């Protein structure tokens, strides 16, 4: 069991799964238990705490239209729910739930509500929206939800070995991008995907978000962060569908993460959470800055 501690790359993880005939969450929970010197059930209780808090944030967000301190965002989830009442989404009920839950969580975050940073607060709605909407619609058991979130956590952990999960360090690819890749893993696990399919889902999701900049208007976690969350939740579903059909990423996952690290380094600091370029310096953004006195 000692060797799990040394799992640093996705290849290490894949080999460990194959050799021991285990799936990702089994390896990951054993590793976590050993690292924290606690039992596997104790690890799972911690994970369950996060799931409970995710559900609570969604519930609170669905029923609020309170605006953020800046007054820029906060009432779009209400608008979306009213829209779906009038006209159902083209992609059906599950799609409606995912985007609604994502917006509910994002908005709960900006009004200083309680959320789960997964992996960060700005990207806090992507994993919960997919996890909760899909598990409720498909009747996924609590045990399976915990398995899925551990799988997602392991994906985030391995990426964070190479790239710090912070917009200021590597842009939004390292925040919402990673959250989407984690969601793709969780979803593929929930739908019975094997290790290879799970890792391909991560690869496909991540590969298509490389270079995503972090250029928040007024430096606040609001524009474009709030609406970006539902977009990247759906992105995760596309990745998972392809992977479950055994579509393989031609570039191996670890190499994609290397590319992500390089891209983050090459990205101008002006596009990494400093609000000095991009959306943050559009004419309208500058007017908003002046209005808010920032």
């Amino acid at each position, binding site marked *: 069991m000692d060797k799990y*501690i040394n799992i*640093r790359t996705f290849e290490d993880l894949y080999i460990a799964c194959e050799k021991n005939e285990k799936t990702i969450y089994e390896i*990951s929970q054993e590793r*976590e238990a050993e*690292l*924290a010197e606690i039992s596997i059930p104790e*690890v799972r209780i*911690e*994970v369950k*705490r*996060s799931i409970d*808090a995710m559900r609570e944030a969604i519930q609170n967000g669905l029923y609020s239209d309170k605006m*953020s*301190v*800046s007054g820029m965002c906060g009432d779009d989830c209400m608008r979306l729910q009213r829209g779906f009442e009038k006209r159902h989404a083209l992609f059906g009920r599950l799609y409606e739930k995912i985007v609604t839950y994502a917006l509910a969580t994002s908005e*709960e*975050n*900006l*009004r*200083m*509500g*309680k*959320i*789960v*940073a*997964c*992996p*960060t*607060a*700005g990207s*806090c709605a992507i*994993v919960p929206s997919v996890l909760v909407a899909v598990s409720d619609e498909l009747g996924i058991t609590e045990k399976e939800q915990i398995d899925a*979130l*551990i799988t*997602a*956590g*392991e994906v*985030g*952990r391995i990426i*964070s*070995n190479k790239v*710090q*999960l*912070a917009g*200021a*360090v590597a842009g939004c690819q390292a925040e919402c991008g990673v959250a989407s890749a*984690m969601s793709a893993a969780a979803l593929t696990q929930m739908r019975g995907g094997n290790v290879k399919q799970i890792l391909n889902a991560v690869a496909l999701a991540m590969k298509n978000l490389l270079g995503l900049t972090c250029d928040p208007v*007024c*430096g*606040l*976690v*609001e524009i474009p962060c709030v609406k970006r969350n539902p977009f990247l939740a759906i992105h995760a579903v596309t990745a998972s569908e392809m992977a479950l059909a055994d579509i393989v990423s031609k570039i191996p996952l670890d190499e994609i993460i290397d590319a992500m690290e390089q891209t983050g380094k090459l990205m101008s600091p002006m596009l990494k*959470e*400093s*609000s000095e370029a991009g959306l943050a310096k559009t004419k309208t953004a500058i007017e908003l800055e002046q209005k*808010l006195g*920032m």
Partner: protein
Amino acid sequence: MRQSSIIDIISPIMVGPSSSHTAGAVRLGLLARNLYNGIPKSVTFRLYNSYAKTGRGHGTDKGLLAGFLGLAVDDAGIRNIFELEISKSFEYKFEYLEDFNRHPNAVDFVIKGSPNIVISGDSIGAGEVVINKIDNFTVKLDGKFNTLLLIYQDIPGMISKVTSKIPVNIASLNCDRYVKGEDASMCIALDGELSDEIIESIRNLPSVYIVRYIKKLES
């Protein structure tokens, strides 16, 4: 590289909107509180750079104060901390500064009372923080480990005297001093816990002036 944990990735449960600017601020406040270990007369929170520019919109000011008052990152009281009774236990104010030599998310806690002390730290992303200066001493306190902090006289043999009293594994050890032979600081991050007796025995060592045992923060 540090061995990372999946629980760190799928937590903390926190009051929004920003892991670095809100939860990070609370954690810095909590560490400063535990370091100070008493009720001050006044605290000036100096926010630098991005903390200064976007702090109000992110509740960084509220977070720093709430942490210093002992609220956890998921406490709903952070939102209206300025109205809560506990925030009236000492005077406080906020200053907003720019200094390009400092981290984008840097803060000083300028604490007046007995004693007067300045604690400095950075919020380095995803809710992770580090306290890196106490007055003129360089330290390294990130809240991830139970940590023993000492101020002592810089004389030979002190490290072995202290570490020989510690029965648990040491994760990291950082020492610093200003002038040879005068005050020095030692920061010891531990994989386990220390009992009150052990801390007391270290406190009783000759030439040890100040000992603080700072428990790791909840994730």
